[in-house]
């Protein structure tokens, strides 16, 4: 009986990558193909930044606690795509330093945010992670962008500050040619990771 439970546990961990990461793979590859529509839309902007925006967004999504999808496979695929995108940026004439300045924060965002989402699924911190992710990573930045850029509304400074702390906002800025420092978004990524780590310790103590 014990052996059967062990087998069932292992097979649940050997899942396929989440469907959304396969869709993200298709979208990323389309960005790297020499398509006329892509050339016209993106011009000379960094393909690495665009792919990183996709993958960091996908990997940071809160995961269902009962799901069998293997998000680590998604991370592995994402790292391959980011390598290919960096190669294309270098072929486009981008400076290696410039590619590196987008690459290393992207790597940390990917690992920290994917790690946070994965740990939140395995601990009792799912709700906390979901709230932090929605406010700091996706919700407020999207809200600010929608109202500020598309609606032309003058937003309070604190909303713009929160929006600027999002890794996704930083990557969107890099894709648009901004050269802001990544420290604040990195702080947010670390915060999300530590928040799930603290929950894990709480759970262990409770047990």
């Amino acid at each position, binding site marked *: 009986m014990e052996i059967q439970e062990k087998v069932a546990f292992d097979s649940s961990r050997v899942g396929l990558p989440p469907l959304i990461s396969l869709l993200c793979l298709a979208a990323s590859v389309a960005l790297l193909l020499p398509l006329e529509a892509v050339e016209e839309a993106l011009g000379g902007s960094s393909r690495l930044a665009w792919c990183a925006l996709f993958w960091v967004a996908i990997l940071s999504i809160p995961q269902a606690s009962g799901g069998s999808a*293997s998000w680590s496979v998604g*991370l*592995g695929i994402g*790292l*391959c795509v980011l*390598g290919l995108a*960096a*190669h*294309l940026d270098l*072929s486009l004439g981008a400076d290696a330093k410039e590619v590196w300045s987008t690459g290393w924060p992207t790597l940390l965002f990917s690992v920290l945010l994917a790690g946070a989402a994965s740990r939140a699924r395995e601990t009792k911190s799912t709700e906390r992670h979901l709230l932090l992710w929605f406010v700091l990573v996706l919700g407020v930045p999207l809200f600010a962008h929608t109202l500020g850029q598309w609606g032309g509304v003058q937003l309070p400074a604190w909303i713009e500050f929160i929006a600027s702390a999002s890794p996704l906002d930083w990557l969107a800025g890099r894709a648009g040619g901004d050269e802001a420092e990544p420290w604040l978004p990195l702080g947010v990524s670390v915060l999300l990771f530590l928040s799930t780590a603290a929950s894990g310790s709480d759970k262990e103590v409770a047990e």
Partner: protein
Amino acid sequence: MSALLWVVFALCGVSSTDGVLELRLEGPLSAVHLDGVRVPTHVIVDLAPAEAITVRVPWLPINPGDEPRLGRVDGEGSARVEVLHPSPELAPPSVMRRPLPRPVGTPPRVPPVAWWLFSGGLLAVFAARRRPIGVALVGALFGLVLVVLPVSAPEKPVVAVLEVGPFGAWWVHVGAGELHPPSGSHPALETRPEGASWEWLVDVSDPASPHGFARTSPGTLLVARAPGPAEVSLSEKGNTFNALQETWRRSSAGEWTRHGVWDHGAPLPAAREGGLLPTWLRAGAPPGAEVWVGRLAEAPPGAQEAWVRLIRPGGQ
């Protein structure tokens, strides 16, 4: 045996114009560098000891304020100038005035080897999916290999245009960074931007077929001109020149029509819609002139894209 340097140029009576140079080379020798020329000129040879040849440097851009002479010899052998011939015919001013071709680089592509590596990376990630840490490390490893894979710089094609008019026919080759001009041409006549530095290399490793090529920075255009075929005729009756992939015609009234593919010997196809003619080909014709523009199905050696532009002034 120390290097033997001949710094004597025997042709005092020759004026300082472009010329064709004959050199007597004795091995062992790997290169000869010339002084007194407008651009750094190097002759590349591959001579064994006791081997001697006389080679012809196809074109020598002589400095108007100086005299050409041997500057340096790489190797134990020797070199000496035998004779300097006057340069071949210069391109007529009408050819020089026509708008130059514009090589447009194709956007960089991910090379096939990178796509293969990427596919291998995806397979490896799926193969390692049982180990969460391992799968991330495999992805990171393939990502790293893709980043450090040597990149290929975007390449601009060498564009050639056969300029046809009352002066005859002249090939004009334009390339960025490096140009292997047709024989008998004058690559120094123009660079874009004008006055950019470049160098002229003449490879005579195979004495039977010496060839020169010009080299400059990737952003600089090099221009070479050479006499073209004796007769080029394009008219409504027929194409006696060459097969054309695309054809445009401007009537003396100034109306452009596109005629598509035009086979050798065939009458002019009917006009059709669509197609974009590069702006540099549209420009340069005086009002009232009849213009024929075509893209050649096969480019001449040294070019990846070739056009013909026939401008027939009004009344001819």
